[in-house]
Every structure is written in structure tokens, then in C-alpha cells.
């Protein structure tokens, strides 16, 4: 039996991120300490990998085509269980083979040839060729990336004193609500040595949350309320101005 000398402890400043009317994104601080064999040179001391996986969503990706000069949605592909938010950060360059082996990455970083397409999508529709599938796969990541919902970086983790690390992760206002998983890995010799994970949630609060859940839970009552407000303001506004003009 080998004696384990490596250790990893982490902390974070938020357990819950609240989205209200003025929410324009928030930074999440993830920090911790790791301990690896200090007699080894810096490169061997280990690297830190921070991964954040947001709640799963089912999405539809549509491709436009020109038809008589008009750009119309022509082909659509449904993807299931796509993370609504994904962030991966490492203190050093990491190669895809490592990620692949450990099942880490946006939509699990597999080689295109190895990808189990049927698991990823609900419906490929008219798409048959591998080339077209890859195009859609890349477009999915690109469109998510444009909304700041997918990100993979190597320069955001700060290592202090050789054993302490901290990183700020920006949660944008487009981030979906739900449970987020934070995974922190200590990597030594291309191996995951320690893995620690915890959760935080993104919640809507305030009048927006009330309206949102009202609309989806009691649609008829919601519609009626919205109507009554319209009737009241429409009627009241006209009355008010009529009296005002008489004076």
C-alpha cells in the first residue's frame, strides 16, 4: 500500500445565485488548496481543473438555407440533455486525450468518429452524412459559446504560493435556472488524483419569478389577470383623459 500524500480542499463564495430584474451576470469564486509531493519539480506538483455543468436542456438547432433569395430554417436537429451552461478551466494546457479518457468536456469530449450520435440527439431528421453531423455538432457549441454559455479556458486559474488556487467564473444573465455541479480535479501525471464536487443553484427571484411560474403553473388564471390589467388600464386611461380634457 502506498501512502497517499496528496490532498485537495476547496471552497466557494456562493451556494445560490439569484436572478432578479437587474441581474446582469455574477462572478462565482471557486478557491482551494491542494497538496502534492513538494519534492517534485513544479510540473509534477499537479494541475487544477475546474468544471461547471449547468442543468440539462433539450434544444433544437436549426440551419437556414437560401430559398428563392429568402433565408429560411431548412433543417433542424434536436439535441437532448445538453448542459445549459458549461465551463471548463485548467491551470495548464490539457490535451483532449486526457479529457476524453476521463469523460470531461462539453458534451463529453469524444472523437467525432467515436461519438455515439444516437445518444446525443433525438432526431437527426434529414441529416445522414458524418460531415453534416459534425457541422451541426460544431454549430451547437458555437451558438452556445456566443451566448456565453459554453467556455473552455486555460488562463483563468490563479495559483498562489504553489499550493493555493482561486478562480472567478462569470455566470451570465442568460444562464438557465437550476442545479449546477462544480467539479474540481487535481491532476498529477496525466491522472486524476483527487476529485471534489459540490452544487450550487441558480434561482429566479422577485416579480419576474412570480410572473414566470404563474404563467406556467396557472396559465388560464395568468391570462385572465393579464386581461383584467389591460381592460382596467385601457378603460381607466380613457376616462382619465376625458375628464382631464373637459377641464
Amino acid at each position, binding site marked *: 500500500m502506498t501512502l497517499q500524500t496528496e490532498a485537495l480542499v476547496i471552497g466557494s463564495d456562493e451556494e445560490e445565485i439569484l*436572478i*432578479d*430584474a*437587474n*441581474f*446582469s451576470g455574477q462572478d462565482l469564486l471557486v478557491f482551494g488548496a491542494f497538496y502534492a509531493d513538494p519534492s517534485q519539480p513544479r510540473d509534477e506538483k499537479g494541475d487544477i481543473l475546474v468544471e461547471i455543468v449547468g442543468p440539462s*436542456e*433539450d*434544444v*433544437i*438547432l*436549426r*440551419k*437556414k*438555407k*437560401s430559398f428563392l*433569395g*429568402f*433565408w*429560411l*430554417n431548412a433543417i*433542424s436537429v*434536436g439535441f437532448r440533455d445538453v448542459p*445549459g451552461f458549461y465551463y471548463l478551466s485548467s491551470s495548464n494546457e490539457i490535451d483532449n486525450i486526457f479529457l476524453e479518457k476521463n469523460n470531461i468536456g462539453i458534451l463529453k469530449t469524444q472523437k467525432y468518429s467515436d461519438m455515439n450520435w444516437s445518444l446525443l440527439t433525438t432526431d437527426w431528421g434529414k441529416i445522414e452524412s458524418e460531415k453534416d453531423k459534425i457541422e*451541426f455538432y460544431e*454549430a*451547437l457549441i*458555437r*451558438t*452556445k459559446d*456566443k*451566448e456565453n454559455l459554453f467556455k473552455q479556458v486555460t488562463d483563468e486559474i490563479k495559483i498562489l504560493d504553489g499550493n493555493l488556487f482561486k478562480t472567478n467564473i462569470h455566470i451570465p*444573465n442568460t444562464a438557465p435556472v437550476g442545479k449546477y455541479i462544480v467539479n474540481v480535479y487535481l491532476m498529477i501525471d496525466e491522472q486524476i488524483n483527487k476529485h471534489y464536487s459540490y452544487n450550487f443553484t441558480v434561482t*429566479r427571484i422577485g*416579480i*419576474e*419569478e412570480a*410572473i*414566470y411560474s404563474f*404563467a406556467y403553473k396557472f*396559465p*388560464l388564471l*395568468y*391570462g*385572465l*389577470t*393579464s*386581461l383584467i*390589467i*389591460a*381592460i382596467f*388600464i*385601457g*378603460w381607466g*386611461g*380613457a*376616462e382619465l*383623459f*376625458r375628464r382631464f*380634457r373637459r377641464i
Partner: protein
Amino acid sequence: MSIYLPIAELSVNIFLLLSLGGIVGFLSGMFGLGGGFLMTPLLIFIGIPTNVAVATSANQIVASSISGTLGHWRQGQVDFKMGCILLIGAFFGSILGIWIFKVLVITGQLDTVIAILYFTLLISIGLLMLIESSQVIRDRIRKKTVKKKIHYHNWAHKLPFKVRFYKSKLYISIVPPILLGFIIGILSAVMGIGGAFILIPAMIYFLGMPTSKVIGTSLFQIIFITALVTLLHATTTFAVDALLAFVLIISSVIGAQLGVITATKLRGEDIRALLAVIVLIVAVKIASDLLVPPEEIFNLSVIRVVF
């Protein structure tokens, strides 16, 4: 200052929304129209998802048409019997319209179809108004007076199920008004409009109603049809954004009153020519959005409602 719209799920500048509601309200007050045909495309221009723009416009029109109807009602210019018969057709039309809307959402064609429908509608209205108002302006310059026919008789008066409409002094079949209501119902549900600019000419030329009763009666039926469309959208497509509607209603009611005051100071044909130009500009913008190659040919949407 931004406001987060809970159903549209995005932040929009509140002053942008207020001025948009105010301008559309001003124009609708000035021209005596609901304004939905401008509200929906303008909301889409500022980035509101098409389905939310349509459903929320319907909700906003309820308020603006109530404001408008009250005045006509007091003057006894509403033919309630005709309004109710139109509504029977509109009821079934809007149910079909919601179904069409859902199919368009599922197949991903909503944006395109809405854009094409609005382009067609706005180009036709814009050109017709421009021709009409320029003729009037020309006649005014030449100091010509045009005699107008009081009553129009066509095939619509020869159908069965004839009913007497005392208020409109009409004795016609109920088939044409039901058919007309049906078409307006479909358009209202799919496009988020009240349909006054189709309804008013159709009531005059197709049903032969007296002009004095037309505006009040069309506003009356628009209140109910847009109220029904709002409820149908709230319960089936979940696209009514109450907060967006609230901001638009407040600003458009104020804008509408200012529009009414302004309208009394200008000649009818002059403001109609102005509206025609505005409508044509919006139509051209819609067409160019469809024709310009997009930067990103892929678009992603999250599935929230399973129909």
C-alpha cells in the same frame, strides 16, 4: 435602465419599450387603429422572440381598443348585433389560428411565415393608403369634390339566413359577417393584430355597413377577439409576457391620447399619407431581414413547452 422580461427571457431597456409603446400608441390614436400591425414587427426588431411579440401584442390591443370603443359607445355608434355575429366567426377562426401558430412553432417556420405575412400586409396597406391619400390631396389641390356612394350592393346580399340589423339599417345574410370574422380570427391569433384595417374596409364595401357605425363596431369586436387570442396564447403557447404587456399598455394608452389630440389639428389625408410612409418603411425592413444572408446560419432554441 434595463427590465428583465420573464417570458421573453431577456433584458430590454425600459425607455426603449416605453418609447416604442408611446409611438405605436400615438400613431394608433392619431389614425384610430389598434396598432398591432406596427407593434408586433417593432417588437421583433428590438429582439423580442416572435411568439412572445405576437401573443403580447394581442394583450396590448385589448387595452387600446377598449380606450377607443368607449367614445364610440357613448355616441351610440356600435352595432352590437353585427359585432356578436362577427365574433361567432372570429371565435372559430382564432382556434384554427392558434393551431396554425403551434404547427409553425414546432416546424420552426414561425419567424419566416410571420415576416412574410407582415410584409404582404404592410406593403398592401401602405400602398393603398398612399394611393388613396395622394388622390385626396390631389383633389384638394384641384378643389374637386368627390361624391360617394351611400350603399354597396353585391353578391353578399343575395345569400340565405338573412337577418335585420337595425342599427346599421341592413338586411343581409349572416354568412358574410361570420366568414369575415373567421378570417380576422385566424389573422389575429397568428399575427397578433386586431385586424381593423382589414375589417373596416370589408365592413364598408363587403357588408355595406354605414361608415359611422363601422369604427365603433370593429373596435368592439376587436376587444373580444384579442381577449380570446390572449387567453388562447396564455394557455397553449405560454407566450404572453405580462410585464412586457404592462409596460406597452401604459405607454400606448398615454401615446394614444396624445395622438387623438394631434389628429384633430391635422388633415386626415395628410396623416394617412404619413402613416403610409411609416408602414412602407417597416415593410421594407422586414423584407431586407429576410433577404440579407445571416451571419450565423444556425440558431438554437431551448424546448420549454411540449405541444
